[in-house]
């Protein structure tokens, strides 16, 4: 089959490097800095040999860990920054939504900001005037258009900004994590609007950490790892590869512990109590999986936990789509009882009859004082697989894609239903 139209986006060997440290290299700058010797500055290779192409009408996802180069790639495509090597060709009008409300000025009213934001995104006043009514209606902010934006809630700002962008009628829409804010109803609306944009023959590039949104929206996905293309292909395949790759990259010590260092505290000046954790089986061997209906044993290493005698250690299990499935903590299990405490402690949490269908999951760990405050938390640190087991005793094997929770029950045929 010969394709009628060439790909709408083609990237060839795109690369981007940043100079680290202080930048004093251009000629005018040297006038001021004569004598300071200009040694070769260290370079950070943020993107390297990135090749891909996107067909017209596709919704194309870009995923990867923090620092993998996703945002840099999007900025290059948007023209915000130039690549250091390679080239990309985009055929069509581009709108980039790297942050909602770019150029929103808090002192200006909603109406003034619609015009400002629209012109920043490349529209002419005339076009905005034509679309204005629809923009306001989409945002659902008819009553607030003469109020300064600084009095808006952040959700309202997002709605207004997205409304402007959704009415740009671009041929290519570049979107970066804008759906992270806003309430559920509006997120759905935005997803719907993006699909509509795509459905109208338009092309969407979507960068996100939200695997549910990526899987839901995208046809194909590109995974970046340390600035290089790690995988490219159908959405669900690449998402699965991504989930497994994050697992492999974790540093394990000899006893199977996943270390949480280095990291930032959840709140400024909060203590870093959580040190490392591992999963173990019945024979105390470190593992990376559990069985449906089996036990899930988690060892958590803590530092300074003895200073918080009323604190509770808990875990939250999440699906690949980042939904919380269940939470379990030491208070539910009756607390630790009156035992001598030490600065460096290991806590074991054990869940019996794990009610999860086979699939990939992740776990957050947290330490908190119930009803008082959160002391420490690490998100998504333990990745593990749940392996199918003969839970029903008849060979039926359940999978996470049918539903995450494994339940037990009965069935029977009770004759023909009588007419009521």
């Amino acid at each position, binding site marked *: 089959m010969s394709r009628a139209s060439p790909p709408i986006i083609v990237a060839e060997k795109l690369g981007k490097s940043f100079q680290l440290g202080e930048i004093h290299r251009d000629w005018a700058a040297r006038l001021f800095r004569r004598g300071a010797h200009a040694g070769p500055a260290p370079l950070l290779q943020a993107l390297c040999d990135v090749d891909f192409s996107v067909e017209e009408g596709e919704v194309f996802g870009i995923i990867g860990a923090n620092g993998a180069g996703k945002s840099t790639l999007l900025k290059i495509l*948007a*023209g*915000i920054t130039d690549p250091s090597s390679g080239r990309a060709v985009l055929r069509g009008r581009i709108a980039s939504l790297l*942050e909602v409300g770019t*150029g929103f*000025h808090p002192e*200006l009213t909603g109406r003034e900001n619609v015009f*400002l934001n629209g012109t920043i995104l*490349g529209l*002419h006043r005339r076009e905005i005037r034509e679309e204005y009514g629809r923009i306001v209606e989409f945002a659902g902010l008819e009553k607030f258009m003469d109020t300064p934006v600084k009095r808006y809630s952040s959700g309202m700002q997002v709605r207004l900004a997205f409304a402007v962008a959704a009415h740009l009628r671009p041929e290519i829409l570049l979107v970066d994590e804008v759906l992270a804010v806003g309430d559920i109803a509006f997120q759905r609306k935005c997803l719907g609007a993006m699909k509509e944009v795509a459905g109208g023959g338009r092309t969407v590039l979507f960068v996100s950490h939200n695997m549910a949104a990526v899987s839901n929206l995208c046809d194909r996905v590109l995974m970046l790892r340390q600035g290089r293309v790690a995988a490219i292909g159908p959405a669900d395949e690449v998402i699965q590869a991504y989930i497994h790759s994050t697992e492999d990259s974790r540093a394990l010590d000899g006893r199977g512990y996943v270390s949480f260092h280095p990291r930032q505290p959840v709140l400024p000046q909060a203590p870093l109590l959580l040190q490392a954790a591992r999963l173990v089986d019945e024979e105390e061997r470190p593992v990376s999986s559990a069985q449906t209906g089996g036990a899930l044993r988690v060892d958590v290493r803590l530092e300074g936990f003895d200073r918080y005698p009323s604190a509770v250690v808990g875990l939250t299990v999440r699906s690949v789509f980042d939904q919380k499935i269940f939470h379990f903590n030491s208070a539910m299990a009756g607390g630790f009882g009156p035992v001598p405490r030490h600065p460096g402690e290991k806590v074991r949490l054990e869940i019996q009859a794990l009610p999860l269908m086979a699939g990939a999951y992740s776990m957050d760990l947290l330490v908190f004082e119930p009803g008082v405050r959160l002391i420490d938390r690490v998100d998504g640190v333990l990745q593990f697989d749940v392996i199918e087991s003969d839970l029903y005793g008849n060979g039926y094997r359940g999978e996470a894609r049918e539903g995450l929770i494994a339940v037990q029950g009965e069935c029977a045929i009770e004759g023909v239903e009588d007419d009521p």
Partner: protein
Amino acid sequence: MNNKRLEYIRQPRRGWFDLALGELWAYRDLLAALAWRNLTVRYKQSVIGIAWAILKPVLQMLVFSVVFGRLANLPSDGVPYPVFLYAGLLPWTYFSSAISSASGSLLAGGNMINKVYFPRMILPFSYLFTGLIDLLLAMAVLFGLMAWYRADMVFGPQMLLFPLFLLPAIVFAGGLSLWLCALAVRYRDIHHLVPYLLQVGMFVTPVVYAVQLLPARFQWILQLNPMTGVIEGFRWSLLGKPVEGWGMMGLGCALSVALLFAGMVYFRRVDRTLADIV
């Protein structure tokens, strides 16, 4: 239809003289929107609002009239000193406020620069237009002053020429702003330097005095300053004050055009890595 599609190519930029003027024109509505934003934001939540645009030069005129007109008794070529002064203060105030706000525009607009593409030259340029609106408002006071002092007004065709003398002011302010704001990205020193540059600038420009105050053999230095031409032109077209040294002032204008061009070249150079360092 695909043949007629816009095509954007992202690749490392090379060459010196790619000024992307066509793009600047395509984004003219943004220029207007930003100029308007600068103006409205400045006067939001103030009681007298845009009246400040008039009040500021008037207050300055009052202070300087007392100090330089009454106390120092500077000559003003037969025109009442306050009128003479105000006709010079108008273009100077425009110039200095354009420079001081435009020179920090790239740093202030960091968030926009990082998140969306637009021709970045629009940021400093928008302040050139904001200042023009202030200037036109403050012009009203000049006509009031002229009537009050019954100055010899030259109602004639030359009065219509005063906007023409704003052109070199815009070009000069634009050129200088491009240099300052591009340098300020790397050197925050510029931020501290600009107020002093402007203070000195005001005294090497005939704002509070007339060019003739200087010995004739030094006057050409003053005339090379493009703002001298602007102010002399204002006084000539509005107050009918005779002007000497058109040649030198023409050269000053030519210099400011060169400064603007060089500023654009340097700005585009800095622009390549702007989003990475702002």
